């Protein structure tokens, strides 16, 4: 049984990557022309390819630094200080997470773009300013905005898990505040920081929406792959895919080395230090005002999206502010079956993928932990692996592997079918659900299952009546995150969608293409609301633990 599940996971997760690498060498596939390193040689001699690799790397490093620079201080601010409205503000600050990548990018475009609200507003008040939201800094801006939340949440979780007694001990030994910060608090925050760094770095390595919309000639690997494929250079696209996968695995190994272990829940458990109360009334007012202004700025993209969704088609041209607002776009979206379909498609595919990921996750975790040994470790590794694979890489790999009918080598024609997109979503959901299910399963007392077995319950009954109810918080935590991510997916969808499975993000892109900005924004709001609801439910169940 473990071998069967393992074989399924290897086939689904690892095999497509091998296929794409083989086809990059001209082995297998419809265009096979024998083992050849020609495409690789041309990759290594081309300056633009090196540029794309190098840019991917430094954009990821800078994105991580920028996200940390915003997220960590915010985490300290809200976890260690008693500010009026702390709970609500603290939650609002995490809301960029409710903007799926593509939606966040278009919100930025509407707000900070060349003819966005910000520029128009400033020009209306007489300032002669203009800028363009393109290239590296635009990508960095969007990355910092959407990824500081990882640092923010990890910092808060890390801080809330710290023992106040250690700080008191340091204080009684005469340590200054900076000494306490650098010698007590920060070292204990290291696992949290390592976790956030890993997450942010890997996310920006695979980031596609921001470079796709803002990059132009500034190519990172994900957009380079898509450009090569578009131009018909499929072999080169496969080489680039392989190289990006290697870059991702390399980075993962390197970062894991720095990372002392990601288990945030471990370590000294005690009462976190008391929050600092601001002494004067003035300080409290200032802190509250500052907090609200900050939250306002961070929520501007959300507000812009909502505003844009209320602008009826062809009513806003040169005015600073839309002259007419109304619900036309929503009416349009809800009244026509064709418009509603992408929303339903996204819902069913994300839900089906999440459910399947739960089933696979529970099966893998149970088998892995009971069986242990090599198959056990391999199972866990296969569940985590997709996390290191950028979405573009996996989408291309799956498309390559599943466009040939050769059942005897495990290749079926799935391209163009209803199944390939949910399958890709499933793979991308595996690490998100798997992580929390494995963690939850480890905490289960094995004697419970033994008791059930000795009372005559079969395996299925034990799982359904004993294991699942106990795992519920862990399952929900992972499933919520997976569901949000898949609902807003753009990067895999753009490669694998068909007319019948086109999801919301693709519809947003094509609405933009035909200048239906309001419709695109309305879809964006829909995604944002669904994601926020899923995030709140997840946060509620998991207590904000990642």
């Amino acid at each position, binding site marked *: 049984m473990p071998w069967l599940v393992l074989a399924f996971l290897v086939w689904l997760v690892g095999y497509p990557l091998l296929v794409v690498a083989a086809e990059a060498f001209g082995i297998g596939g*419809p265009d096979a022309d024998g083992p050849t390193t020609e495409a690789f040689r041309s990759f290594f001699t*081309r*300056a*633009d390819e090196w540029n794309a690799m190098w840019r991917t790397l430094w954009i990821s490093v800078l994105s991580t630094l920028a996200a940390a620079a915003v997220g960590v201080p915010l985490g300290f601010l809200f976890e260690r200080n008693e500010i009026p409205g702390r709970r609500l503000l603290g*939650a609002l600050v995490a809301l960029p997470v409710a903007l799926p990548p593509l939606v966040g990018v278009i919100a930025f475009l509407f707000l900070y773009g*060349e*003819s966005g609200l910000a520029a128009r507003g400033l020009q209306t008040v007489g300032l002669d300013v203009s800028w*363009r939201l*393109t290239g590296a800094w635009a990508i960095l801006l969007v990355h910092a905005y959407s990824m500081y939340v990882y640092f923010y949440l990890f910092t808060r979780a890390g801080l809330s898990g710290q023992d106040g007694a250690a700080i008191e001990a340091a204080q009684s030994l005469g340590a200054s505040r900076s000494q306490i910060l650098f010698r007590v608090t920060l070292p204990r925050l290291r696992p949290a920081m390592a976790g956030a760094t890993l997450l942010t770095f890997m996310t920006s390595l695979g980031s596609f929406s921001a470079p796709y*919309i803002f990059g*132009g*000639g500034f190519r990172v690997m994900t957009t380079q792959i898509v*450009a*090569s*494929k*578009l*131009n*018909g*250079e*499929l072999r080169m696209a496969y080489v680039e895919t392989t190289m990006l996968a290697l870059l991702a695995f390399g980075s993962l190994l390197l970062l894991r080395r720095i990372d002392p272990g990601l288990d945030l829940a471990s370590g000294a458990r005690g009462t976190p230090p008391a929050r600092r109360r601001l002494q004067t009334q003035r300080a409290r007012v200032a802190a509250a005002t500052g907090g609200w202004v900050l939250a306002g700025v961070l929520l501007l993209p959300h507000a812009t999206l909502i505003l844009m969704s209320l602008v009826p088609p062809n009513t806003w*041209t*040169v005015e600073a502010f839309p002259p007419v607002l109304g619900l036309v776009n929503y009416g349009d979206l809800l009244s026509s*079956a064709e418009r509603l*379909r992408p929303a*339903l498609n996204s*819902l*069913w595919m994300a*839900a*089906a993928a999440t*459910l399947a990921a739960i089933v696979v996750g529970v099966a893998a975790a149970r088998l892995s932990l009971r069986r242990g040994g090599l198959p056990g470790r391999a199972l866990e590794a296969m569940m985590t692996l997709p996390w290191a694979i950028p979405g573009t890489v996996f989408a291309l790999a799956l*498309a390559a592997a599943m*466009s*040939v*009918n050769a059942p005897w080598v495990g290749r079926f*024609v*799935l*391209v*163009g079918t209803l199944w390939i997109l949910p399958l890709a979503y499933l793979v991308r959901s595996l690490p998100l659900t798997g992580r929390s299910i494995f963690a939850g399963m480890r905490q289960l007392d094995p004697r419970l299952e033994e008791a059930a077995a000795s009372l005559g319950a079969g395996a299925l009954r034990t799982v359904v009546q004993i294991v699942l109810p106990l795992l*519920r918080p862990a*399952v*929900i935590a992972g*499933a*919520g995150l997976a*569901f949000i991510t898949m609902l807003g997916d753009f990067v895999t969808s753009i490669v694998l969608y*068909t*007319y*019948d499975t*086109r999801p919301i993000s693709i519809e947003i892109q*094509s609405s*933009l*293409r*035909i*200048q239906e900005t309001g419709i695109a924004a309305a879809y964006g709001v829909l995604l944002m609301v669904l994601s926020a609801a899923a995030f*709140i*439910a997840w*946060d*509620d*169940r998991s*207590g*904000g633990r990642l």
Partner: protein
Amino acid sequence: MRNALALGRRSILLALAAAAAAAAAVAGCGGDGRTPLVVYSPHGRDLLTVVEQAYEAARPDVDVRWLDMGSQEVYDRIRSERANPQADVWFGGPATILARGAAEGLLAPSEPSWAGVLDAADRHPEGLYYTLYQTPTIIVYNRDAISADEAPADWDDLLDERWHDEVVIRDPLASGTMRTIFGKILADSVVETGSTEAGFAWLRRLDGQTREYVHSPAVLHEKLTRQEGVLTLWEMTDTLSLIDRGAPVAYRFPASGTAVIQDSVGVVAGSEHPGEAEAFLDWLGSPEALALAVREAFRLPARGDLDAEELAPWVADVQSRLRRAEVDWQMIEENGSEWMAEWDRAVRGQGGG
């Protein structure tokens, strides 16, 4: 945020399952008994909506489903789906791109009734695709920002110092129009000098003039209208629609002659409904459908047996002013991809200035 929403524990999982089932049920029963005809096309909403409505009125048993994308994206999708074709009709794009598709076996032969009235150059010898519309490539400018006498009269004038950072261009990789314009410049360079070097040098200078490459024709229109860039290289039909909608733009045929894109159509190989696809082609080239395309979307029919004056006054006007340039289509077809890859890595963003 704990307990921010009082969601029952089981309810989330149940809701997930219910959402999956309900949405799958609704999404699954999209069919209403009509034969679906899937059309991949770069033609844009205006023409596609008109075509969809008119064809469904003529054939109530057919459901036209279109996906709008760049011409090169149509090729990329059809090729990606080669093992399991999803499209029935490849509707639009320069013949040079369809020719590549034909060479890779992505198109199936068809014989629409109007094939016979086309020039031989507008027909694939084995009937894999046919030219439906003619699309002149032109210079477009914002007429509030540039007067008619000041506007560039030829491609070379775009390189004038005064237009530095004023040119905005549709991202050429995805766009058949831009691939054709760039292709012509490079093909001319080969014909005149024996190599692409002069052509690439020219494109590098154009890149230096370029403010931005944009993702879609819609963004191009928007930028031109708002004067975030006042000049572009584009095609006529789209521009006429834009002018018709009141946008402050005007256009010029380049003085040295206009490359006219042979905008073609074909049946996708492996289409589930080849008969329906061929019937659709047949209708697209019929005088009624062409008159509709002329009237509603400013398409210029390729077939020469229709009376221009009768179609619309603008057709006669355009035909009288249009001076066709000699273009080595064969060369563009054979080298287009390589040239664009070269442009992408060695020219884009490197024009300096």
